[in-house]
């Protein structure tokens, strides 16, 4: 058995179903061995998207997504995808081919020091120099990627190691890492302290982040909120923990969030941040969430606690374990008056928009789209104005909302949606992007056609890099610089070139009719172009 065969055996043992990749000589032994396996391969059209697609898989299955690319440029192209996953704590296994191990360090053809290059974006990385290390390394890599604070792990494997004979293949049952033991269970004393504060609280609130979804703790969190009637707000990555229309949910916080959510967070007397980093977009003034209130910060990564705001009660652990432990406590929490106040805020602080009737109103369109989407649909937002409108107006029922929150990587939505669709072929998967972000990954229309991955794509087209244009509108008094997207392709012809059904929506009049066509068949991809007012603003 060769090293490459052994790698495939490891992936099979981990239950990997799909590998997104792009071959080159240095990873060819791997792609040769995978032919003998039931693992599906998808030829992505640029390596960055292999990592994004793996991220889509990981976010839907809860298991690490896998991508495999060649050495040198293949490996360096994947870095943005790795950094995107790292910023959102998404578990990935990135396999990179490498030049012959005897040539390492001599700058031969397609050699790049990829373990060195990704050092600041991975949870861990390996360079395998002995074929017999393969089973142990893969076992450790999957364990590291998907435990504690999740994240990408890179495994670099020289071609001669892939071709070498392995003495004996034995996939370890257990991981034996002397140095890596994340804390998942919350400290009992700290849990009691939190309960005691909640008993005294008049205006408690829970702010949920992506960590709740990563821990799979949605049910626990909803049950806790409902049992004690504690209101909930979310960060961008926490959207979907609570259904958007849940009576106890008050929306996304932050500078692009809902005014009532920000007000709720600032006026609370006990704030429980869970699985959230307290980063600048969600909390622009950390002082406001520490002054005059008890801040409880729950995170599986101790380094996040106190990094941006000093909590009154730090609580290290996995959200699922902690909310299971909370559920064992009996206490009463009286906050009906507070809920009344928040309901008033929700009514009074509704953002007002003045849509231009000559165009599609992106807010109303996204609202209608999500109302008509299936309950468990997966909505993938890209980056830019489309993302902020999606955060503000998409209605999550029992499905998922995916986006690149931490890194804000344009072009994420289409490959991530492809990953999600691959992982959940029966679910409705829709990618919503702008015309800028669409053009960053439109080469994947070919991948969708080749591998029959029927993702539906909405392009909110305004011929601008809208988010930057909006920034230049406010900051540089409409002195636009390098934001005009003139020259973009005719999307109808582009769709035709890929045999993809296409509809153009010019204003809201035909909205329902286009949605009828878009949503009628989950196994049919489609491209919908929505013409939106180039001067429209997210605020």
């Amino acid at each position, binding site marked *: 058995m060769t090293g490459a065969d052994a790698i495939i055996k490891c992936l099979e043992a981990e239950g990997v179903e799909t590998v997104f990749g792009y071959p080159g000589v240095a990873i060819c032994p791997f792609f040769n061995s995978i032919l003998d396996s039931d693992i599906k391969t998808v030829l992505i059209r640029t390596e960055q998207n292999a990592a994004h697609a793996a991220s889509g898989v990981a976010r839907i299955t809860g298991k690490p997504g896998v991508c495999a690319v060649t050495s040198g440029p293949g490996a360096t192209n994947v870095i943005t995808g790795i950094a995107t996953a790292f910023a959102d704590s998404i578990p990935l296994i990135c396999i990179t081919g490498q030049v012959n191990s005897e040539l390492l360090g001599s700058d031969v053809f397609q050699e790049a020091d990829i*373990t*060195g290059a990704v*050092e*600041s974006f991975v*949870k*861990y990385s390996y*360079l395998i120099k002995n074929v017999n290390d393969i089973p142990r390394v893969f076992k450790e890599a999957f364990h*590291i990627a998907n435990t504690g*604070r999740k994240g990408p792990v890179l495994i670099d494997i020289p071609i001669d190691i892939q071709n070498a004979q392995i003495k004996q293949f034995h996939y370890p049952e257990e991981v034996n*890492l*002397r*140095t*890596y033991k994340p804390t998942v269970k919350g400290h009992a004393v700290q849990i009691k302290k939190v309960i005691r504060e909640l008993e005294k609280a008049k205006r408690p609130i829970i702010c949920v982040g992506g960590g709740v979804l990563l821990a799979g703790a949605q049910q626990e969190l909803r049950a806790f909120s409902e049992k004690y009637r504690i209101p909930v707000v979310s960060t961008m990555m926490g959207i979907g923990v609570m259904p958007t229309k849940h009576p106890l949910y008050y929306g996304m916080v932050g500078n692009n969030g809902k005014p009532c959510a920000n007000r709720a967070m600032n006026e609370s007397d006990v704030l429980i941040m869970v699985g959230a980093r307290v980063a600048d977009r969600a909390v622009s003034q950390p002082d406001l969430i520490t002054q005059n209130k008890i801040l409880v910060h729950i995170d599986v*990564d*101790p*380094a996040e606690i*106190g*990094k941006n705001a*000093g909590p009154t009660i730090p609580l290290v652990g996995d959200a699922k374990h902690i909310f299971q432990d909370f559920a064992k406590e009996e206490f009463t929490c009286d906050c009906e008056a507070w809920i009344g106040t928040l309901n008033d805020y929700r009514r009074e602080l509704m953002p007002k928009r003045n849509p231009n009737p000559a165009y599609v109103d992106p807010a109303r369109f996204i609202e209608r789209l999500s109302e008509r989407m299936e309950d468990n649909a997966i909505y993938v937002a890209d980056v830019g104005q489309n993302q902020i409108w999606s955060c503000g107006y998409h209605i999550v029922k029992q499905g998922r909302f995916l986006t690149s929150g931490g890194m804000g990587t344009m072009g994420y939505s289409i490959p991530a949606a492809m990953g999600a669709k691959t992982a959940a072929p029966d679910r409705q998967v829709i990618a919503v992007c702008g015309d800028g972000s669409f053009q960053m990954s439109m080469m994947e229309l070919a991948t969708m056609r080749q591998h029959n991955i029927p993702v539906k794509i909405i392009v909110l087209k305004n011929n601008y890099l809208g988010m930057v244009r909006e920034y230049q509108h406010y900051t540089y008094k409409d002195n636009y610089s390098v934001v005009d997207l003139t020259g973009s392709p005719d999307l109808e012809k582009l769709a035709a070139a890929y045999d993809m059904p296409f509809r153009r929506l010019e204003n809201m009049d035909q909205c329902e009719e286009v949605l009828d066509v878009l949503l009628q068949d989950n196994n049919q991809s489609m491209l919908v172009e929505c013409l939106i007012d180039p001067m429209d603003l997210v605020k």
Partner: protein
Amino acid sequence: MQKKVFQLLVDNTSGVLSRISGLFSRRGYNIESITAGVTADPRFTRITIVTSGDDEILEQIEKQLSKLVDIRDIKELKPDESVYRELILVKVRVSNEQRQSIIALTDTFRGKIIDVAPECLTVELTGNQSKIEAFISLLDGYEILELARTGIAGLGRGIENVTFIE
């Protein structure tokens, strides 16, 4: 700003030192000195890092270091509960008249003359940082040709602070 000394016990993997120094550089933390060497158990390396920052930064340094997968143990070496030593080699230009006074000074500090040449002397000196600083400042009137410092290595006092590996 205050100074802290951290002692790390790490897995002796390739790249572990670059992971640690990379963490300091990308997060903008200071390293005043770093020393590393294999322990009695060849699977592990002991690293002593002297760093500085305010309380919050120092707390983050400790937490971020703890997150690195290769790090087995991290502890602060507090001055009262630890011993620190640094070794320096210093080459001083000396005339015939100056030679005896450098030798006397080295004796006073319990250093050693390890190389003698017609125009210079090389002194080896070990001690804690204040002793080293005192010695260097006393060389003020001389020309220091070359100075090599190892940075400090440290251990906690007594048996209470020993980290036992399974």
